[in-house]
């Protein structure tokens, strides 16, 4: 290699629009700010719930069953006399924890599987794709009911069931990004540079699948929250006294006809808002995917 002259470091720093600016440009400031603010508010509320001056969410007050909203109990009390306001906020903790952990497990297993499937192609790809299709063809609620009935109704099992359903979502998505890249010149160039196959996949291919994966995360969480609530509503999943929206809605469902709407409606609103805002955030993040030549 010939002698290398000393070059002074005259790097010009390039200022690129920040992530936030790009989101605002594509979606409008209002939409971005409002949805991110609501999502952050919900999550922060869940995190600091034990520190707030709330009533004990799991303490039944036998003398105060089904009290309507009042200065004492802002959202009223449920059939066990537990404070609905405190429970609705504490439910954020359990619903989001379950949802996020199941989605994370799904991504951690699904994304590498999809990358392997897409990069190596051939027989491995065929087998993995078939398995994915079989898994996705199975009715989810029935599967969850069967597993929870057989393996026991525990939170771990609930997380695993939902994770199990997220694996194919992410393996399919990553595969669809990776497969067309296999023949693309920059992947060949990475080989020419001397990257080992594992480095080609992790350094050069998977980073290109990250944006679609990240924009899918909130949507998967929304779906997981819905599923957890749905299972708890039919008596599987989370059960009373643990504060969880689905179980709380179930608790008050039979009271609505008697005009005791507050038991179900407040946790219902919590569920609705969370799912709605997660969907919106996912949509907003998807605007980052487009800018690819």
């Amino acid at each position, binding site marked *: 290699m010939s002698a290398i*002259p000393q070059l002074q470091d005259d790097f010009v720093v390039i200022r690129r629009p920040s992530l936030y600016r790009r989101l605002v440009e594509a979606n409008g400031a209002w939409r971005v700010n409002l949805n991110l603010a609501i999502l952050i508010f919900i999550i922060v509320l869940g995190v600091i719930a034990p520190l707030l001056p709330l009533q004990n969410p799991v303490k039944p007050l036998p003398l105060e069953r089904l009290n309507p909203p009042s200065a004492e109990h802002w959202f009223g009390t449920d059939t066990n006399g537990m404070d609905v306001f405190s429970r609705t906020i504490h439910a954020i903790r359990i619903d989001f924890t379950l949802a996020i952990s199941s989605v994370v497990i799904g991504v951690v297993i699904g994304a590498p599987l999809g990358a392997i499937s897409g990069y190596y192609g051939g027989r491995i790809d065929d087998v993995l794709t078939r398995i994915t299709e079989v898994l996705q063809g199975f009715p989810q609620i029935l599967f969850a009911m069967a597993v929870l009935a057989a393996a026991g109704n525990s939170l771990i099992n609930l997380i695993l069931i939902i994770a199990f359903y997220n694996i194919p979502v992410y393996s399919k998505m990553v595969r669809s990004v990776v497969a067309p890249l296999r023949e693309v010149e920059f992947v060949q*160039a990475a080989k020419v540079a001397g990257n*080992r196959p594992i480095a080609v996949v992790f350094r050069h291919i998977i980073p*290109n699948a990250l944006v679609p994966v990240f924009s899918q995360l909130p949507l998967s969480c929304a779906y997981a929250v819905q599923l957890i609530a749905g299972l708890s509503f039919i008596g599987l999943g989370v059960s009373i006294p643990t504060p969880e929206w689905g179980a709380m809605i179930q608790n008050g469902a039979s009271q609505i006809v008697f005009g005791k709407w507050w038991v179900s409606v407040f946790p219902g609103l919590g569920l609705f808002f969370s799912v709605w805002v997660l969907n919106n955030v996912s949509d907003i993040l998807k605007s980052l995917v487009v800018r690819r030549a």
Partner: protein
Amino acid sequence: MMAAPTPLITVDAATKTYKLRSRSLRRVNMTALDRISLVINRGETVGLVGESGSGKSTLGRAILHLTDLDSGKIVYNGNEIQSLSESEFRPYRRKLQMVFQNPLTSFNPMMTMESALLDSMRLVSELDLNTKRRRVLQLLDQVELSSRFATLYPYEMSGGQLQRAAIARALAPDPDFIFLDEPTAALDMSIRGQIINLLLRLQRETSVSFIFVSHDLRLIRYIADRVLVMYQGQLVESGDKAQIFDHPQHAYTQKLLSATFVGQAERAQARSRTET
């Protein structure tokens, strides 16, 4: 000029057939390389011409161990390389480089030019990171890209700029051989001249060898020592530049030449008439 030329790369009866499925699910075979044999000497530029789909890029990928051959032999520096596994071949990687045909897809969209060029030097163990960084800037400068480009992503650059960066990337690990797949197609005339002269100068300094693919016969005539002509996967003609341009043997070569240099004699006549 040079004493007895030493062969750097020898390709012997290389054959590659792609098996495709047509829409009616019949198997269709596409012979991209049909018993290709050739020799590339140290410090030599070999021009490679041929119509679209004649197998030029496939030949490059085969030499660089990016495509398996069905049969045939490739020898680099006395070592048979086509039968090596990917990990056995890795030590040779830095010595055999390529400038890919499509500059727009040649760079990882997630990497700046600096990371891309550093990545191409990952097998260069004798330089430390700081020296490599300086070498990146030096290489960019050689292909007429200012240091600003080191921090840019591929989608922030034009096709011609990417093509020059791709040439810099191929030069980075100090190779013995570069397969240049239409490396000047996206460049304007002035930059093209500079890049060509850069390549020729580096060749004199380091005796790197080139296969230079181009549809521009004038350029081939300027840069190449020898010329190869491919047609439907076969090497239909090979020899000295003068021999091929003045006495083309194969019908395809004759057609190619007459298409390029048509009217040249008449134009020369007309010019001399107006001048007198």
